[in-house]
């Protein structure tokens, strides 16, 4: 059968690309990331042959979805499998800028792990913010897990170190370590996280950010990843109805996967992240 083909050129793509750029921007994918994704799309599509009758927009959208999937699934690992196989006790450290949901997410993960049969201790490593220790304490009480805490102003590395010692002595599987929220631009505070990592050697360092954030997500993800080193992210507050493009920004910049999303303020409002789900949320 003889089928006629045409070559895709940049001119034909222009209109579709700018529409897709709009969709991405409105979904809170950072401007610079959208720029780079568009360039990738052009690189892979210009010069490609398509059958007459095949819709160009379908081809472009399929290609875009596959680029996004690649970004979102780089270095993906399964959290449950990780926890199953890791040497115990394992310390999991939570870091991020102010108010993104670190402490609440620790409580949610504690609930998840204890209901899977693991034993958990939480470390009150935010010794800075007013009410931070009491907040984690209340969560621990609600969930029936042990908390290790010092006083406000104490050295957070020492608190977490104590929690690990406690876990070793009592045969507890997982230590979930809270840290104070901090701006990525505050060098001394970022250095402090470096010290916490050196002293407490976390098996996993998780960056917590909120899906409500726009372009700044790439700045802070980059700086936390460069200066502290992260293994994955958790994106909170998806229930407020952002599209979730922040996941794309953060994964693109860090090359690390989003592991979970927070979908509310209750302990059960934590869902495993899936790239298909997010892409569907943006395009369907």
């Amino acid at each position, binding site marked *: 059968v003889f089928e006629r083909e045409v070559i895709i050129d940049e001119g034909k793509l222009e209109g579709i690309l700018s529409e897709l750029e709009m969709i991405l921007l409105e979904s809170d994918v950072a401007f610079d990331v959208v720029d780079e994704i568009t360039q990738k799309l052009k690189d892979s599509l210009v010069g490609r042959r398509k059958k007459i009758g095949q819709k160009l927009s379908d081809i472009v959208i399929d290609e875009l979805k596959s680029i996004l999937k690649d970004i979102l699934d780089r270095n993906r690992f399964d959290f449950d499998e990780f926890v199953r196989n890791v040497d115990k006790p394992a310390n999991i450290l939570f870091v991020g800028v102010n108010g993104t949901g670190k402490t609440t997410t620790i409580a949610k993960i504690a609930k998840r792990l204890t209901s899977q049969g693991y034993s958990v201790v939480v470390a009150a490593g935010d010794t800075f913010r007013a009410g931070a220790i009491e907040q984690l304490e209340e969560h621990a009480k609600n969930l029936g897990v042990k908390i290790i805490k010092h006083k406000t102003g104490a050295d957070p590395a020492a608190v977490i170190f104590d929690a690990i010692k406690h876990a070793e002595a009592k045969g507890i599987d997982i230590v979930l370590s809270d840290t104070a929220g901090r701006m990525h631009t505050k060098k001394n505070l970022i250095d402090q996280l470096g010290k916490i990592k050196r002293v407490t050697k976390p098996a996993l360092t998780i960056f917590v950010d909120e899906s409500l954030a*726009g*372009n700044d997500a790439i700045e802070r993800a980059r700086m936390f990843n460069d200066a502290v080193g992260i293994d994955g992210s958790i994106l909170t*507050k998806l229930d407020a109805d952002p599209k979730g493009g922040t996941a794309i920004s953060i994964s693109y910049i860090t090359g690390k996967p989003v592991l979970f999303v927070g979908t509310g303020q209750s302990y059960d409002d934590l869902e495993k992240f899936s790239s298909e789900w997010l892409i569907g949320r943006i395009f369907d």
Partner: protein
Amino acid sequence: MALEALKDVVRKIKSSSSIDKYLVEEIVRDIQRALLRADVNVRHVKQISDAIKKRALSEDVLPTFNVREHIIKIVYEELMRGIGEGLDIPLKKAKIMLVGLQGSGKTTTTAKMAKYFKDKGLKAGVITADTWRPAAYDQLKQLAEAYDIGFYGDKNEKDAVKIVRDGLEKMKDYDIIIIDTAGRHALEEGLINEMIEISRVANPDYKLLVLDAAIGQLASTQAKRFHDAIGIDGIVITKFDGTAKGGGALSAAREIGIPIAFLGTGEKVEDFEKFDPAGFVSRLLGMGDIKALLEKV
């Protein structure tokens, strides 16, 4: 000679001149990129760029301005359109209620505002009406105690409306009372209703929406819901000490046509400033000192 000079004083960017037209297009493209990078709502960016294109080509260029300065002045005016230059809260008896999304910085801002007015000589107190977040009470109490600010709360009471009613009764002799409320978002119907009820009972003089400088495209729709529910009088932008530009919060202000009142510039209770529009827009655009530019007029 004199006539020549005069003609030069008020100049238009001639739409017929392809160089000027091209220049305008190019500058507008730069500005669009800056606005989108700063989280200004995509819809607002379109409106603003259309307005710039129209005005840049039709309005007189001030003698001291080049084309770029001419356009930046227009951008400044368009960005601030309908939201004024700030919000002045006079130094007299007032009740202020803070509302906003989870983790935006309400509790910290409650303490910051109380200290701000206390430093100006008013008797300032705070009420914690957040009965949801674990240890919300302790957080505000510790901040209030550290700064010698009046505090009211009831750890065992789950009814936020009752706490506010009792607190206002107890704090009758205070000049400024700031009410901290739980974090909530537009889709949490129950919490939105609670906020409406608190607002009705407290009858605040100012209802301020606290927004994180990093908030993205969702800012306008969220703000609209809060505004429809209780009527917002001003916005406080927090966490301005990072790299976020605050374009989301600005879009929220534009969306509902209300001013930005204060900026939070750090975790400490002292880190609090009145909103300065020229400084804000300079930072948002990353295009030099707009204050100096406006003073050239």
